[in-house]
Each structure stands twice: as C-alpha cells, then as structure tokens.
C-alpha cells in the first residue's frame, strides 16, 4: 500500500480568540478560525474543495461540515464530520490527508470550535456532566469524567510508584509555557504545591490536574505537496500518521497503564521512518495530568513507568530534552472539548515556522503531535516536519 508520507502539507493554520469569548457563537468561532487560516495561507475559497469538521455541543448540527460549507458558501467535493472526542482532530487530519492522496479532493479546510464556557446553559452542562460512562455498567456508580482519569492515575501510582507531585509537575510545566503565550487562557505561574493543595476533585486528581473549560476555534488548511509550493508560508509536511483504538469504556480496558498510543505511535514512526530520538518537541493530549505520563511512555520518550520522573527532571520544559505542550496545552492554553487538540496542531505549525516568539523551541525541525479521545480510548499520532 502506498504511504501518506510527505504527500500532504499544512499551508495555513490559525486560532480564534480562546478562553472566555462570549461575543461569538460556536459556529462563529469555527468560521472565524477558518477565515484566519485562509488569510494565513493566502488562499481563496474557490481553491478549497474539501471541508472537514466536528460537531459542537453548544450549537450542534446534524451534518456539521455541510452546515459550515453552507455558511461559507463553499461547495466541496469532500465533506465529513467525525466525532471521536479529543482524538477527533487528528483522525480528521488522517481522513483529509487520505482524501488528498487518493485524489478525492485537492485542498481541505479543517475547522472546528466549541463554546463550552459561554454557549452552554448551566442545566445542559450539568446534565452532560451527570451521565458519563456506559449507561448500564458504569454510569449508575456515579463516575465523573475526572474520576475516570483518576482510575488511570491511581493504577499508575500503584504499579510504578508515581507520585501526586510528579502528576502536578505536568501542570506546572504547561503553565510555565502558557506564561510565555499571550493567547493562553491561564498564564499566572503555579507551583507543585499549588497543584497538590488545590481542591480534590477525584482522588488522586486535584483541580489543577484537570484541564480548562473554554471557548475557542482552530483551523488548518491541508493540500498536496505539489500545490503547497504555490503558497507563501513554509509548508509543514505530514510525515507520519497512525491511529490506535482499543476500547470505548475504561472498565473494558485491557491495561490501565498502557494505551493504544503504543499502536498509533508505532504506525506514525514507521510511516515517517523516524523514532522518538528524532523528535524535537511534542504536543501531547493533556486533558488530565496522568494522560501525559502514559503518552510519554507509550510513544517511546521514556521507559514504561518512568513518565513521572521524566517530567520531574525538567526534560519536557522549554530548553529540555523534549519540550512538550509549548502553547500551554489543554491544562493552561484552552480546552473547548473536541476541538481541543487542534490548538496543539496549530502550535506545532507555528513552532516549525519559527514564529513562536518567546516560547520558540530551538532548531525545531520535527514535531510529534498526539491526540486522545474518550478515556484513553482513541489515539492518533502525527509526525510533522519542515522538510520531506
């Protein structure tokens, strides 16, 4: 089978305002990001023949990508919405790259947004929060979303001796990076003590082990390698992509401490012909702090069980061995639900273009970006580079 390696490139990338954005609806945030990404690429709407999105909670449509196409008055050849939680964004990129490589279309606008802070009534938010997990075999026991990740954190602690302070270090690093990012929702520096002394949500996870709830939208434009040369910005090539899906419900997971990131990472590395040592920086899905430790291990950046010590050593800070979540991640930059990891993708593009200002990673040539959806359920890994 032909590989997607280097077949496509991102030529435009942009975010809307993020955080608390009450003056824009979810659809407007989605369109705002799309318009900014088109400006960034210097592309007209006539050149876009694919639209890919995911639905929003605040302003849902039955056929979301069609609704966005209609709003923009673009009539694409390829139009699809996907919903696999936080894994959605990179699954979508995988779909879009495949569509371009197989000739379904040439240039895809991938845009998504939600308005979880301003666009959802308190009743709706509470109703959503009150019923998570399998309706018959999990939900009756009253699990919250943080508690499902707390189950993973506890398992990691019991198996490997990971500490609350090591989990907290993930959040401290994210905030350090957000402090350097004017666009981030939370920028005030925090300490490990601040995290472990914050309110206990679901033991062992404290409030500051949990990501933000935000408004925001983000978009990228993907085209073929050949066409990418026609646009002004440094193309960012998709060198590798892989997915892994092992379960839906956490009580059905074969392992609580090793995830399908092993599978998605292996597939992406193989396609790119690269390994963990070739990666200059990584943007890892950080809905809760334990997620990051497991991703660091499963993607081969440290040994299984050593994620906590790796983070605590400063290896993942700017200037360290493998800077992660350089924009501040879902923990400190913003987290508007399904679109959350799009901001990791646009950040990777900004870094690879050497446009990240005070938070720029030195000599950034190759990035790994990882998204995860459900409860460590659905994983997609991307490897991006400046050169093919």
């Amino acid at each position: 089978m032909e590989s997607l390696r280097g077949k496509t490139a991102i030529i435009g990338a942009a975010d809307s305002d993020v955080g608390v954005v009450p003056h824009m609806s979810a659809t407007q945030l989605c369109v705002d990001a799309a318009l900014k990404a088109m400006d960034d690429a210097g592309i007209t709407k006539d050149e876009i023949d694919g639209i890919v999105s995911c639905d929003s909670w605040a302003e849902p449509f039955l056929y979301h990508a069609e609704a966005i196409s209609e709003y923009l008055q673009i009539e694409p050849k390829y139009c699809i919405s996907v919903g696999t939680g936080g894994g959605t964004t990179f699954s979508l990129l995988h779909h879009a790259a495949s569509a371009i490589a197989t000739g379904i279309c040439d240039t895809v606008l991938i845009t998504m947004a939600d308005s979880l802070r301003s666009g959802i009534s308190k009743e709706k938010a509470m109703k959503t929060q009150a019923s998570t997990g399998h309706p018959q075999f999990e939900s009756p026991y009253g699990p919250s979303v943080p508690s499902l990740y707390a189950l993973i954190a506890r398992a990691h602690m019991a198996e490997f001796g990971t500490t609350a302070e090591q989990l907290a270090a993930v959040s401290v690093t994210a905030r350090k990076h957000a402090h350097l990012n004017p666009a981030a929702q939370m920028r005030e520096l925090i300490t490990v003590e601040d995290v472990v002394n914050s309110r206990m949500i679901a033991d062992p996870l404290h409030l500051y082990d949990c990501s933000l709830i935000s408004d925001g939208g983000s978009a990228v434009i993907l085209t073929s390698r050949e066409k990418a040369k026609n646009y002004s910005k440094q193309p960012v090539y998709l060198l590798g992509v892989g997915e892994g899906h092992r379960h839906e419900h956490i009580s059905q997971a074969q392992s609580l401490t090793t995830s399908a990131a092993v599978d998605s990472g292996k597939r992406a590395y193989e396609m790119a012909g690269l390994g963990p040592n070739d990666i200059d920086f990584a943007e890892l899905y950080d809905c809760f702090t334990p997620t990051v430790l497991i991703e660091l291990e499963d993607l081969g950046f440290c040994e299984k069980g050593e994620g906590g010590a790796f983070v605590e050593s400063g290896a993942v800070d700017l200037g360290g061995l493998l800077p992660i979540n350089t924009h501040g991640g879902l923990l400190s930059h913003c987290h508007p639900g399904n679109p959350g990891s799009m901001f990791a993708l646009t950040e990777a593009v900004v870094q690879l273009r050497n446009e990240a200002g005070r938070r720029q990673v030195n000599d950034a040539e190759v990035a790994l970006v990882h998204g995860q959806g459900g409860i460590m359920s659905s994983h997609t890994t991307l490897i991006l580079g400046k050169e093919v």
Partner: protein
Amino acid sequence: MEHAGKNFPEPTIETEAYWDGCRNRELLIQQCNQCGKSQFYPRMMCTNCMSRNVHWVKATGKGKVKTYTIIHRAISKAYAKEAPYVVAIIELYEGPSLMSNIVGCHPRDVNVGQEVEVTFQDWSEEITIPMFTPIERD
C-alpha cells in the same frame, strides 16, 4: 426514594437476565460453551472465539480492586449525599473486570489489590445494583 435522581440502568433485551440476576442477589456473567472463556458485559458472542454459544453463569462475586478513585465532587445532587464515594474497577476471580462502588468501609481504607466481594443495593422494585465491599479477614 433514597436513590431518586441517580442514573438508573435501563435493562435491554440483551442485559435483562443480568439485572434479573442482581434482583435475585446473584452476579451473573457469561461463559463460552466453545472455549470456556468468561466475559462481562453481556454480549451475543464470545469475545475470544466469536462463538454465539455463550451461557449465563453465577460468578463467585469475589475479586480484587484493580484501581479506584475517591470522588469528592459528585456528578449530581443525587450522588452528592454519597460523597466522598469510591468508584473502582474490580477484576473478578473468573477474569472479567467491571466498574462498581466500594461500600461498607471508609474510602481511605480502600487499596489497589484489596480483596472484595459483591453486595447488592436495592434502588427500586425493579433495579438492584451490585456493589463491592472488602472481604473481612479474621
């Protein structure tokens, strides 16, 4: 009305035997007649060999805590009066894992690896929920 407002399971054609079992204070899981593997939750085929020849068996109801969390921020008012409450994943002696609450002890006394056994909580005339409690050793 003690449990009003909680997330009551709605048994389906596929799961009603399980919930009937709970009402009779029996924890039922499935076992494959072809390869002998036990499984939970209920399915129309064996996840190991794909045989449709699976049958219900009464589980020992004993197992170990694989992991747990103590929930301080309850998901809704109906659960707030239980907080802090323990949600755990339990591995049954027969092999399959399931989610449940650990009850009958202080949340602080729950541990990974702890041996637990099933106990049943009646939520209504139709619905009885299996929960787990530490096995007393003396």
